[in-house]
């Protein structure tokens, strides 16, 4: 049922049945390296292009997630998937072989939240017993899409983030597990007028702030009611801005905040500047690091808030600002 202005509290909460993460070489060398289900040493994943590699990651993540739950593609009612590439081709090409009815999504790096929200809503509404949510990003294809060819010699600004090569897939359904999605808060587009696409943390922090506060107010909770409030890819710059914005509105989340972009890489040794980003950043961290902790009951309730910077190379070149969006997913141990 609806809760507050933008949220839903499920009467019969769907379970997060299983999940899987597939990551690239650099991610495999990072702090979460050993936790991913699959790490490929070669970023082309045995394919010819970055785009094909990204599609392969998505397919592998879906197959692994289904395999863990002992399910097959035919058991999945609908698939919710998206990525960062033009027209969402990484998803279309990646999941076509699975033959699952598909909703293609775009929410920039917040797509994992969008997919999880829609999948859990569909299950809760009784439109199927099992849904699959998947997202991905790839450093090579994202650099090519949004910035420069990989071989181009330039200096990245310190506020720039490193697109994660990885994919996360999540099975949401009625089959019992130890994690439930008890609520979602669908985020609004928040635009503070910033135009710097190399400082995405600052572009997305206002949206994260808006969604987190909305979630707390809609559910009548305090920040302490969550063991962790986990943003997707604000990075170091975005996190400090989020703290300031939240403090300005009377909330202090310093103690229980975590950011996937700051968790997935080691800033000191991996030269990733402000942290990780991309759809794959939040998705793989959720699957590899966050969900196991919720499953074990180490964290009882967390708010997962993947954040997205909404832009294209055309909108950027035409001088448009980079608005942000963030969706809140409430995950609880059971």
């Amino acid at each position, binding site marked *: 049922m609806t809760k507050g202005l933008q949220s839903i509290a499920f009467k019969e909460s769907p379970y997060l049945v299983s999940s899987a993460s597939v990551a690239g070489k650099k991610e495999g060398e990072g702090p979460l390296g050993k936790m991913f289900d699959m790490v490929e040493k070669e970023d082309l994943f045995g394919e*010819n*292009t970055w785009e094909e590699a990204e599609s392969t990651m998505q397919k592998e993540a879906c197959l692994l997630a289904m395999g863990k739950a002992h399910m097959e593609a035919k058991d999945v009612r609908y698939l919710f998937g998206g990525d960062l590439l033009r027209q969402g081709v990484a998803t279309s090409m990646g999941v076509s072989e699975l033959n699952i009815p598909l909703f293609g999504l775009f929410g920039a790096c917040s797509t994992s939240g969008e997919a999880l929200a829609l999948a859990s809503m569909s299950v809760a509404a009784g439109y199927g017993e099992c849904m699959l949510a998947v997202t991905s990003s790839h450093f090579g294809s994202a650099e*090519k899409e949004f910035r*420069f*060819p*990989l*071989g*181009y*010699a*330039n*200096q*990245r*600004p*310190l*506020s720039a983030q490193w697109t994660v090569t990885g994919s996360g897939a999540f099975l949401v359904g009625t089959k019992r597990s130890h994690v439930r999605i008890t609520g979602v808060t669908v985020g609004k587009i928040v635009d*503070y*007028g*910033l135009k*710097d696409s190399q*400082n995405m943390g*600052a572009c997305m922090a*206002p949206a994260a702030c808006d969604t987190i506060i909305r979630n707390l107010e809609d559910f009548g909770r305090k920040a302490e009611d969550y063991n962790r409030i986990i943003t997707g890819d604000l990075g170091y*710059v975005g996190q*400090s*801005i989020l703290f*300031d914005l939240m403090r300005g509105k009377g909330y202090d989340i310093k103690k229980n905040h975590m950011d996937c972009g700051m968790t997935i890489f080691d800033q000191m040794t991996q030269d990733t500047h402000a942290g990780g980003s991309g759809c794959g950043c939040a998705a793989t961290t959720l699957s590899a690091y966050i969900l196991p902790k919720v499953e074990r009951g180490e964290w009882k309730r967390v708010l997962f808030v993947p954040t997205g910077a909404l832009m294209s190379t055309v909108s950027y070149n035409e001088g448009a600002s980079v608005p942000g969006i963030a969706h809140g997913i409430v995950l609880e141990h059971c």
Partner: protein
Amino acid sequence: MDKERQQQAYENYVKKKTPVHNLPANMGKAFIAGGVICTVGQAVLNFCEKLGFDKDVSGGWTSMILVVISVLLTGFNIYPRIAKWGGAGTLVPITGFANSVAAPAIEYKKEGQVMGIGCKIFTIAGPVILYGIFTSWVLGFGYWLLKVSGIVA
């Protein structure tokens, strides 16, 4: 109006919050990187002149050799690493220009010889070529005007 002021305030705040590269350190590194590249060029030039080529031919050889070295280093992914350290020192010399042409050629090869390499090889260097030629045309036109009006001989 109020919204604009708010946006400006946020932009200023973000600017304060965002770390930037250390300018003097970057300039020092650019000086060294650019200096090394130019010294290599000078060495090639001197060598060519020693072989008995005249100044123009030696200059041509020097540019060509620097371009080839840069393209090879780009192909082996070494040039971007040098540029990460050396910044503008590696971008301004002709080697930087060669890199900006070689990098798209490598990246877009997969999209085909025509639509990939053909259309996209100058995505970065294109503006430099266009406005470089345009500027030389403007200067040439100015020179011609001065010549016709008898101001310069």
